[in-house]
């Protein structure tokens, strides 16, 4: 039996096709989110890769910011539940999850069965999210996937203290104009993101193990900064960007079993 999970985020679309609720047959990420061609392209790519068709899917669950815009879904489940389910599936020892996506950051507390018992999300503000990093990468004239490497070369972490993305951008520009190296600034940017995410994580009670998912977890610089801040190791889910879609596919499997 095949089930599909589709996570339509603000910045990217992710599709996971699951066989019998266990094996990932296809996992696709397209860096375009809701309102774009991203969801359709991710869907087509996943089907192509798995050599399956949409009619082979017993159930489809949609999640993410654009979950209600995907008409072919049998059900919509919130990204909180989906990320929790997906990460717990990959990291069963996880009790605290930090998930940083394109426009939101969340910290989720799980019990030993993987049930969500508490969660906190960012305010109506882009600080500490993937968008924040996008803005900083643009100002620093580097690609987003180069940030981790720059961070690893930093000999110092400069302070980027502004909470507001716009003010933080000015702060980064000010550091650049003073000749501070990009490495140090990027380490500061990562520390700023970590500080916001950890603020949410502390509120959950911070039980071990702490696992990360979401697109930003691909940035080893942010992961290091969070680990430093929380003073404990961070377990990054394999292919962290697809954890929401994986959770959705697992919920779709539940639905399939019910029917």
């Amino acid at each position, binding site marked *: 039996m095949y089930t599909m999970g589709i996570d339509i985020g603000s910045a990217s679309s992710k599709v996971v096709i699951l066989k019998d609720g266990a094996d990932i047959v296809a996992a696709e990420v397209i860096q375009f989110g809701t309102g774009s061609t991203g969801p359709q392209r991710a869907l087509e790519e996943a089907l192509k890769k798995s050599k399956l068709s949409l009619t082979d899917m017993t159930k489809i669950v949609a999640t993410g910011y654009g979950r209600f815009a995907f008409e072919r879904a049998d059900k919509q489940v*919130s990204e*909180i539940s989906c990320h929790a389910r997906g990460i717990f599936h990959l990291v069963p020892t996880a009790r605290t999850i930090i998930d940083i996506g394109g426009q*939101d950051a969340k910290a989720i507390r799980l019990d030993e069965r993987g049930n*969500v*018992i*508490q*969660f906190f999300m960012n*305010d*109506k503000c882009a600080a500490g999210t993937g968008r924040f990093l996008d803005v900083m990468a643009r100002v620093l004239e580097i690609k987003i996937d180069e940030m981790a490497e720059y961070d690893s070369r930093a000999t110092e972490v400069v302070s980027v203290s502004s909470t507001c993305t716009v003010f933080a951008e000015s702060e980064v520009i000010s550091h650049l104009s003073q000749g501070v190296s990009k490495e140090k600034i990027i380490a500061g940017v990562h520390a700023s993101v970590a500080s916001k995410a950890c603020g949410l994580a502390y509120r959950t009670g911070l039980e071990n193990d702490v696992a990360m998912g979401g697109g930003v977890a691909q940035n080893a610089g942010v992961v290091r900064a969070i680990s430093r801040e929380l003073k404990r190791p961070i377990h990054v889910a394999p292919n962290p960007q697809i954890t929401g879609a994986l959770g959705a596919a697992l919920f779709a499997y539940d639905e399939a079993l019910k029917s």
Partner: protein
Amino acid sequence: MTETQGMNSKQKLGYYQEKLYQDALDAHSKGELVCWSSSIAPSEFCETMGIHMIYPENHAAAVGAKHGALEMIEHAERKGYSLDTCSYARINLAYMDLLVEEAKTGETPEVLENCPGPRIPLPDIIITCNNICNTLLKWYENLAVKLNVPYIIIDVPYVHTWPIPEYTKTYIVDQFEYAIKQIEEITGKTFDYEKFVKVQEQAQRSVAAWDKAMGLAQVVPSPLNGFDMFNFMALIVCARAKFAAEDTFNTLADELKEKADKGEDAFKGGEKFRIAWEGIACWPYLSHTYKSLKSLDCNMVGSTYPGAWSIHYTVGDLREMAVGYCKMYSNTCLENKVNVISDVLTSTSSTGIAYHLNRSCKLMSFLNVETAEIVKDRTGVPYVSFDGDQTDPRNFSPAQFDTRVQALAEIMEQNIAQNK
């Protein structure tokens, strides 16, 4: 009251709201006194002396609910009011400014002309009571100074410890007596203590009818949807000392009782989850927030907010009246807040609660972070917080709200499954 005979509760609500505004406009045009009052200031004193009352917070909420807030807020911000100021204050200060401009020029400014909220007259007196927040003190002072009208403050100390200390009660009674003296000076009339008793009796009957109607939300499934609770609240604010409130709430209670007796509920059999809502409604998004919860089969049956006007006292006892006006939720310590919310959750059988982190209302919102944790520890009821604002539409994100309440519903579903 023959004019409302045969009307249902919603018709009475509409009728009386319109009448209250029209009566104030008529009074103003006849040269009678109109008072702008904060929403939980004692209305009994002015009512006794025949002064017509307008409640700026309630009026601002009405402007917000009718999607007219942004134009008013922008007008206020152009005048220099910070966006960190309460949005009720910004709407009201803008409205006042536009009314003044109209009075001075004889021409109605376009923003005022297009405002979908009810028309209100300028005031002759300002009364505030700081039992709900301290922003009111400067907001209303600003009104009084700009309009050069008398300003009466009923200062109610914050209740830091429970029970309310005797010296606090004594102080508030002194405040009441001084307010009466000021009203006597303004009106040029002696305070009518016999009528005052009648007014207090009416206020107590209105409150009893309000309690009776709102209490029916405790029935499972509930015949009342909580967003109607927000709508009906208009009359407990604006007409607490009038028959209008008693009349409407008794009709509402009868209707709800009839529904409950027949086993009917607000969601026509679809009430799956019962939740409480802590904080003021997001008036510009009242429909969105209602529909979002309804799509999840979530009925909002509990709120601490309408209970704020459930002010009980023995008629004629100023000391008890002082307690009534100082013990409301927003004027009390964390310990009492936790007790009140826990009681709301228990009495309404709510299995979840949504906390509105209201950018406009720092007093209610700042404590919520701590309150929520303690209430959860005590009751085990899961909660969710969302960012919003009572009337500034820019501070609320519908998609963020939807995600948070959907996740809450999923946690409640998970809890139901585990308890089976």
